């Protein structure tokens, strides 16, 4: 099922810690309940996004990998 999102952020090519810094900025700009789609190519981003959502309390709706691209849907609480 395709997840609806309100904003898309492409972090392709960026290395740690830039994807989480950019994700934080993007989620801060959303309203509660809105969803961010984030795309990364850093394989470490899977563990980092899990950790980041656990710490910040935002909801990681989905994390998947497709042809070297890591795709995350994060719902702002």
């Amino acid at each position, binding site marked *: 099922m395709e997840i609806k999102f309100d904003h898309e952020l492409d972090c392709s090519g*960026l*290395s740690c*810690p830039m994807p*989480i*810094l950019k*994700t*934080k900025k993007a989620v801060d700009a959303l309203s509660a309940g809105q969803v961010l789609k984030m795309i990364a190519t850093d394989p470490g981003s899977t563990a980092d996004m899990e950790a980041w959502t656990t710490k910040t309390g935002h909801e990681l709706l989905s994390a998947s990998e497709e042809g070297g691209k890591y795709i995350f849907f994060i719902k702002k609480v």
Partner: protein
Amino acid sequence: MATENSNRLAIIALHGTLDLAYPPLILTTAALALDMEAAIFFTFFGLEILKKGNADKLKLAPIANPAMPMPVPNIVGVIPGMTAMATGMMNSWMKKANVARLSELLDLAVEGGVRMIACQMSMDVMGIKKEDLIDGVEIAGAAAFLTYASQNAITLAF
């Protein structure tokens, strides 16, 4: 050691080499993304990271560094040009992996509110003046760092 749910990161940066300047800046900027607060206490050669326009000029030492991918015997490492060569190699790997430059991470840390504390005593010893350092730096001593760190901080030194 921090107790559970620490929300504060306190790092001591002791070295002014390319490889050792990265961890304090990566970890403190990551802390900002995690809604944590962070401080770095720059002491002795760590102050080189804070010198205006210096962050991207830091070098990697091939001497006494047996972990170099192409091991450089110390006797070779002392030859003029070897430090520049090792530095150029590391910079090219970092660029290839798309890692942010030290100056970018430094700007992000300062803009994001990481407390950048320059050690007064080290500045006196090394003849470094406030105006030699980037804007946004505070100058303080060990007590200031320990007071900050004593409030349930994760503490690390590089």
